[in-house]
């Protein structure tokens, strides 16, 4: 393996191989030894050992001549012979290095990337924004503020070159859905059936209730009379009555059937009894009045959908 910085020497003598032994004996490692002519050897040695070479052969019968350099030393020497190129390269590297001090782009990634606007605003408040000098302490302050955002559990800022990457991770825990605490009657009617697995029943079977009345309360009462808030787990069916009116141009079986179906659809419950009355209108056509008795089933926290209108 050639050294990175090396000089090339030419050694002339009647027996030049002895010169190699002399160098090796002095602790110098030679590289790429070539016989270039009779009594002539070309060797490469590390640049830092160049002075040693001349010291070793001083006063001897060997003719030692430095004929050049190689590796990075040669490139450096060539560069020094072209000052404009050297200055240009230096200016380029300085510009690139200075560019790294600035923030030219801010990326927000991670599961909390939806907080992009807020995080950019927090960074901006601390003086970290695009085309600004990067201040690690200010960025750290912004990071601490980002951690206060909702559900944010991890924030990291990483500056690579001129790009600042903000990684925001949110909590993997899914918030529990808000639970209804009590069973409420959706309509006026009579309680046909009421089953409360949890909570306190506030209506009895056969009782008349209005829309909005609490059927099962979301609390429990201990034997000591202490009230404990909880959530109701209950089911009820309510018998309701409703009256719906529909106009038609003329009386017919089809019109009657449409009026019945519209009433059933509108009541939103399980129809039990449906009575239709037809009355002629003053100008023209007829008016159907549908009286319907229907059952509404409601439940809370039972994991089943009630067949009621919302």
């Amino acid at each position, binding site marked *: 393996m050639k050294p990175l910085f090396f000089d090339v020497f030419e050694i002339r003598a009647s027996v030049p*191989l002895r010169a*190699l*032994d002399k160098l*090796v004996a002095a*602790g110098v490692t*030679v590289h*790429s030894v070539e016989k270039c002519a009779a009594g002539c050897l070309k060797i490469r040695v590390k640049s830092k050992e160049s002075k040693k070479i001349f010291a070793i052969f001083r006063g001897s019968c060997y003719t030692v001549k430095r004929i050049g350099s190689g590796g990075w030393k040669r490139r450096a020497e060539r560069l020094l012979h072209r000052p404009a190129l050297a200055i240009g390269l230096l200016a380029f590297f300085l510009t690139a290095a200075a560019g790294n001090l600035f923030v030219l782009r801010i990326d927000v990634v991670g599961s909390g990337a939806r907080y992009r606007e807020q995080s950019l605003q927090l960074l901006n408040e601390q003086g970290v924004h695009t085309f600004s000098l990067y201040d690690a302490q200010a960025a750290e302050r912004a990071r601490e503020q980002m951690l206060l955002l909702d559900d944010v559990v991890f924030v990291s800022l990483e500056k690579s070159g001129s790009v600042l990457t903000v990684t925001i991770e949110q909590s993997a825990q899914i918030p529990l859905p808000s639970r209804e605490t009590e069973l409420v009657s959706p309509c006026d009617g009579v309680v046909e059936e009421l089953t409360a697995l949890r909570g306190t029943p506030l209506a009895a079977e056969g009782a008349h209730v209005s829309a909005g009345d609490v059927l099962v309360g979301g609390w429990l009462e201990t034997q000591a009379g202490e009230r404990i808030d909880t959530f109701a787990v209950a089911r009820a069916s309510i018998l309701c009555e409703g009256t719906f009116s529909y106009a038609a141009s003329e009386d017919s079986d089809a019109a009657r059937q449409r009026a019945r179906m519209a009433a059933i659809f509108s009541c939103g419950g399980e129809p039990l009894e449906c009575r239709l009355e037809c009355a002629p209108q003053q100008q023209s056509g007829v008016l159907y009045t549908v009286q319907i008795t229907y059952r509404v089933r409601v439940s809370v926290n039972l994991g089943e959908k009630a067949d009621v209108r919302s």
Partner: protein
Amino acid sequence: MRLFEEALGALGISQDVVNGGAKVVVMTGVCACLENVKGITLLTAEQVNVKTRGGEVRIYGKGLVVARYGLGDLWLTGKIDKVELGEVAQ
């Protein structure tokens, strides 16, 4: 050269006893590595003679170049055809 140490260990020979003897590793057609080299007595593109404490190693091939030589180690590159061990030619 760990292989040397393992081989010597398997033979029950202490490395101190054989220290100074020639160690030659040849990678066919590519290079040769020698340890305990005392000097180079011949250097051409076709033949390199290396002096060791116990004798001489003669390496034949084509395009032979001493890639590195120092501290008793020698690294020879080129197409190596043959390696001979023998006494130092007087």
